[in-house]
């Protein structure tokens, strides 16, 4: 319909609308043409507002609104006085409501009066479907009459209700059916075999209709049959490398003439091998697979298609399996050895092992082995040891024999199965010192999930060695560090890079060795450690504190076990935390102890060590310790200095003591006068034991005796210490002795004070003062003075000097006291003459008690002299053994003495 026709139709509609009576109860002032249209986004849309007479307005009063937005006047077109059209461009943002309004009169309160409104339904016209394809599958013995089609609809959101219709046409018949957005089917009642047909899709909505390209096909182009049925595989004896495959046609040839496709693989493998299509083009039901491996189980699948390739391949048939018959091994067994170091010097142990031949062609039942010039020995293989059906070739240990380092030998091996023997494999083990050279370098890398090894060939020159200088092949050997599992593979002589074919485990450390082989001679290996994939260490290092100091600590950790490293340790990081602050130190991977310095003394530290690989790190457990308050040796220095000081003081004290020994001894053990040497002890037996009380007037007879006072002060102090004794002494008014004796004599009490206060005066007179006694000429204390040879008259007072420093005895000082009291205080004179009184026995007992108190030091000189004094007074002056005692250089003391004060 052209534009003029449209315009004409529009005018007619307007005329009709203007003339038509209105029956609505609602007063209408006009209308919009068209009513509720569907508009295409991106296109212009024109609407016309027609005013009725009731509107009482003209075209100039009309204005358009899109919801609340007034359309500019420029877009208006006045058709006549009562009709105005507007043209707007539809966008996604265009409001749905288009309103026609009139301006209200100035008198009207309602300024804007809506005349009419329409709802715009926006959308897009349908898009052309593309990539239409159809298929008819087999149903029973025939092809299904339903043809299923798929296509790609438009990518744009249609926004409007859209219908899809699938059409099928063939000569004399047309079919159609409603379809979904991207698929549908047509039922032709009977599949139009060998006919031409046309199929297309129509898409329609309010904005238009579009048709896909017509699919002009022959019926055979749509056919997809079932896969061949009853696929069967026949294994024939004596044909160890072939299998006969048979099947049945899925559909009668009159419907579809088919060709086939066959594929096969070994059990467990997904690497299918397809039979060349040309071999199975003919319409056949069997095919013989060739060039197969003996004693191998194969899986076979078959599919079919129209013999000219029309239509679709059927699905693959279900798996059919069969095993080819056995054949004798056609390749050598894979012979290898492992040299085990022996504890015996200059000897090693060789473990001979092998894998069954690659082309074992059956189950290997055993091996025949010969070492050097020995005989062939048979090693039977149990079924459990070797399963030829397994894809993985197992390692079979054959022999372990001691092998001298200087021995060179040839090992030969043959494998045999139920059909025959394999070719012979050989291996030469050279002398240890004449091993052919190793490869020059060895490295590894990973690529696409596999571990690759790269090496450089050995630099071999002809040196007259028994082996040929050409490398014939390489052997790659890898050993798992974690479990010791090993395996090997052979590579050709020109190979420089090879992927490890074994089933390597991630995070597992492998020691990979490359052996160059020289026509069966095993060269020296070159070994390298490698990982298929590195990971984070399973555990951190075990850390311990070997030593802690005041400001440092020495940490020590063990290397993580190799099977738990899961990668190459790149470094260790030491973390130590104190006071909430963490510090870290990175050390190299070969460091296993470290001394952390600059630590705070007497502080608690938490330490851990992190082991890192390229993939990550793992921490050890935290370890806490405290640093010392003092450095090592500091305490020892203090102790030693204190000890030295103490020792020094002791030594000093001892020196002082030694130096002052005499005075100290005298202080501790004051000198006791030896009564036996006392001249006073040489009493005259004529005198009664009871001395007469001396009289004051006897002072005239007192003679001054020089007393050797070497330490006057000490004496005074001693006197002070023995105050009770002194009191007794000082109570005596009969005695005076030494220097100053006159004062003592004049006043006994005063002498006490003199001795205390003015003792120094006497000491200054002479450094050495001998004791002196005043010997009364007429006896003293009633004792009878012993006659001295040099003194003719006993009554003559004389001075007697004594060498003894012993203080004077109380018995001498208190002759007037009761005898019992005197004896108690003077044990040296404990024994009185037998005839002195009848209480002598009691006195002796008392004297003995006193002796015990005095100690043994005093006992050594007391009792014996007393006996002498009492029983043999005539022998005074002689030693008990009759020897004359030392001659007194002074006159004997007659009246005792007293301490000099």
């Amino acid at each position: 319909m052209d534009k003029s026709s449209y315009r004409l139709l529009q005018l007619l509609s307007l005329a009709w609308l203007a003339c038509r009576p209105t029956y609505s109860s609602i007063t209408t002032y006009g209308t919009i043409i068209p009513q509720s249209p569907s508009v295409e986004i991106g296109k212009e849309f024109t609407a016309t507002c027609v005013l009725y007479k009731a509107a009482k307005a003209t075209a100039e009063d009309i204005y358009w609104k899109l919801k609340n937005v007034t359309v500019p006047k420029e877009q208006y077109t006045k058709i006549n006085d009562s009709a105005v059209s507007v043209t707007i461009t539809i966008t996604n943002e265009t409001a749905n409501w288009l309103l026609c309004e009139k301006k209200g009169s100035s008198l009207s309160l309602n300024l804007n009066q809506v005349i009419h409104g329409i709802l715009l339904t926006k959308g897009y016209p349908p898009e052309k479907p593309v990539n239409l394809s159809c298929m008819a599958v087999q149903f029973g013995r025939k092809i299904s009459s339903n043809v299923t089609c798929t296509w790609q609809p438009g990518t744009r959101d249609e926004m409007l209700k859209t219908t899809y219709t699938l059409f099928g046409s063939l000569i004399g018949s047309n079919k159609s059916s409603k379809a979904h957005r991207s698929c549908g089917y047509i039922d032709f009642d009977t599949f139009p075999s060998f006919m031409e047909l046309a199929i297309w899709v129509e898409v329609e909505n309010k904005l238009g209709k579009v048709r896909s390209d017509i699919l002009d096909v022959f019926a055979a182009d749509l056919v997809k049959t079932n896969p061949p049925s009853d696929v069967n595989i026949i294994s024939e004896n004596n044909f160890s490398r072939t299998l006969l495959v048979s099947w049945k046609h899925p559909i009668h040839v009159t419907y579809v003439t088919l060709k086939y496709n066959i594929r096969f693989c070994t059990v467990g493998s997904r690497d299918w091998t397809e039979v060349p299509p040309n071999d199975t083009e003919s319409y056949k039901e069997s095919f013989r697979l060739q060039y197969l491996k003996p004693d191998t189980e194969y899986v076979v699948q078959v599919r079919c298609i129209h013999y000219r390739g029309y239509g679709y391949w059927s699905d693959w048939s279900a798996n059919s399996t069969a095993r080819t018959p056995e054949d004798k091994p056609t390749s050598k067994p894979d012979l290898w050895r492992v040299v085990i170091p022996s504890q015996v010097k200059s000897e090693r142990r060789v473990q001979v092992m092998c894998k069954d031949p690659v082309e074992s062609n059956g189950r290997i039942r055993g091996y025949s082995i010969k070492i050097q010039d020995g005989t062939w020995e048979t090693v039977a293989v149990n079924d459990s040891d070797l399963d030829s059906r397994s894809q993985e070739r197992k390692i079979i240990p054959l022999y372990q024999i001691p092998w001298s380092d200087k021995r060179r030998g040839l090992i030969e091996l043959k494998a045999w199965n139920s059909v025959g023997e394999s070719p012979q494999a050989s291996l030469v083990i050279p002398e240890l010192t004449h091993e052919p050279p190793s490869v020059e370098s060895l490295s590894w890398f990973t690529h696409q999930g596999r571990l690759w090894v790269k090496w450089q060939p050995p630099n071999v020159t002809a040196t007259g060695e028994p082996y040929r200088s050409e490398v014939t092949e390489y052997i790659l050997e890898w050993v798992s560090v974690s479990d010791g599992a090993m395996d090997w593979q052979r590579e050709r002589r020109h190979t420089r890079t090879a992927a490890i074919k074994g089933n390597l485990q991630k995070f597992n450390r492998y020691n990979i060795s490359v052996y160059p082989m020289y026509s069966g001679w095993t060269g020296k290996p070159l070994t390298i450690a490698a990982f298929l994939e590195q990971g984070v260490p399973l555990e951190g290092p075990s850390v311990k504190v070997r030593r802690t100091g005041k400001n440092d600590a020495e940490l020590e950790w063990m290397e993580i076990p190799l099977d738990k490293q899961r990668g190459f340790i790149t470094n260790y990081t030491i973390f130590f935390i104190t006071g909430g602050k963490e510090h870290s130190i990175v050390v190299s991977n070969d460091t296993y102890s470290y001394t952390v310095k600059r630590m705070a003394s007497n502080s608690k530290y938490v330490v851990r060590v992190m082991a890192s690989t390229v993939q990550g790190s793992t921490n050890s457990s935290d370890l806490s310790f405290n640093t010392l308050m003092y450095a090592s040796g500091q305490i020892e220095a203090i102790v030693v200095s204190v000890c030295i000081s103490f020792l020094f003081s002791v030594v000093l004290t001892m020196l002082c003591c030694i130096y002052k020994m005499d005075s100290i001894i005298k202080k501790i053990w004051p000198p006791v006068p030896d009564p036996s040497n006392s001249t006073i002890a040489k009493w005259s037996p004529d005198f009664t034991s009871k001395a007469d009380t001396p009289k004051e007037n006897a002072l005239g007879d007192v003679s001054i005796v020089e007393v050797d006072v070497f330490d006057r002060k000490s004496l005074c102090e001693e006197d002070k210490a023995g105050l009770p004794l002194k009191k007794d002494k000082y109570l005596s008014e009969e005695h005076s002795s030494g220097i100053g004796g006159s004062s003592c004599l004049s006043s006994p009490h005063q002498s006490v004070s003199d001795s205390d206060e003015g003792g120094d005066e006497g000491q200054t007179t002479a450094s050495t003062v001998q004791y002196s006694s005043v010997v009364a000429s007429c006896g003293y204390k009633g004792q009878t003075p012993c006659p001295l040879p040099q003194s003719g008259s006993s009554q003559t007072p004389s001075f007697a000097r004594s060498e003894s420093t012993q203080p004077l005895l109380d018995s001498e000082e208190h002759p007037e006291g009761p005898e019992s009291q005197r004896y108690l205080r003077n044990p040296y004179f404990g024994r009185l003459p037998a005839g002195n009184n009848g209480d002598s026995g009691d006195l002796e007992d008392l004297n003995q008690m006193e002796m015990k108190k005095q100690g043994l030091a005093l006992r050594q000189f007391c009792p014996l002299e007393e006996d002498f004094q009492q029983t043999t007074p005539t022998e005074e002056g002689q030693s008990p053994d009759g020897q004359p005692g030392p001659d007194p250089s002074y006159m004997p003391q007659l009246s005792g003495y007293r301490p000099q004060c």
Partner: protein
Amino acid sequence: MSGHVKNMYPQLSISQAARTLLSLLLVAAIDSVNAGIACRNQQCESHIQRSSKLTRLIHMESVDLLKIYKASQGDMSELFCQMPTNIVPDPNISGLDPSERMLSIYSHCKAFLPHLKRVTEQQRDLQPPSSPLLNNLTTAQYRTSGLANQINCIYQNLFPNLPIPLEPVDGPTSIHPSQNVFQQKVYGCVVLKNFKELLSQMRHELRTLKNQMCKSRTFAYTNALF
């Protein structure tokens, strides 16, 4: 032309509405005929071969159809097929030259279609709805119609200057309007039997025609090029 049309309007005595409706129906009919006989220019050999294969398929199915028919007619089914009847087209293909023989094939296909339809209707009354016989009869009609159209196209391609008569060359097939059950069964069996025979002959004829027509046309086409 438009003036000629205008001049013709007064000559028509029928009303305008009826005239319009008649025009529409005519257009639809022309379209339908065009759709039914729309033929593509195809290679002779493949075209005939495809028809030959279709003939073979129909023949195979006709063999099965006859077996099913006999099996579904109960007792005396063999007797039904041996009864003579003269209302069924003769299956023999006639003609001297290829065009005549091909036209005869086309005519026979067309001639058997109403008989097959009649048998189908009769058996629909005699057989349960789920009977495979009905389905096979329908399929035979469908395929035979398609085969007839293909033969038509081949004929048009091979002999573009020779018109195809609308009616079969042997004249319109006469079908008795009413038959009893016995007559229906005899009729049906004879139709299917002759139909099978026709297809057998058609296979042979098409193979022969392919060899005669396609090789010669290829040769002629080759000569024309040079």
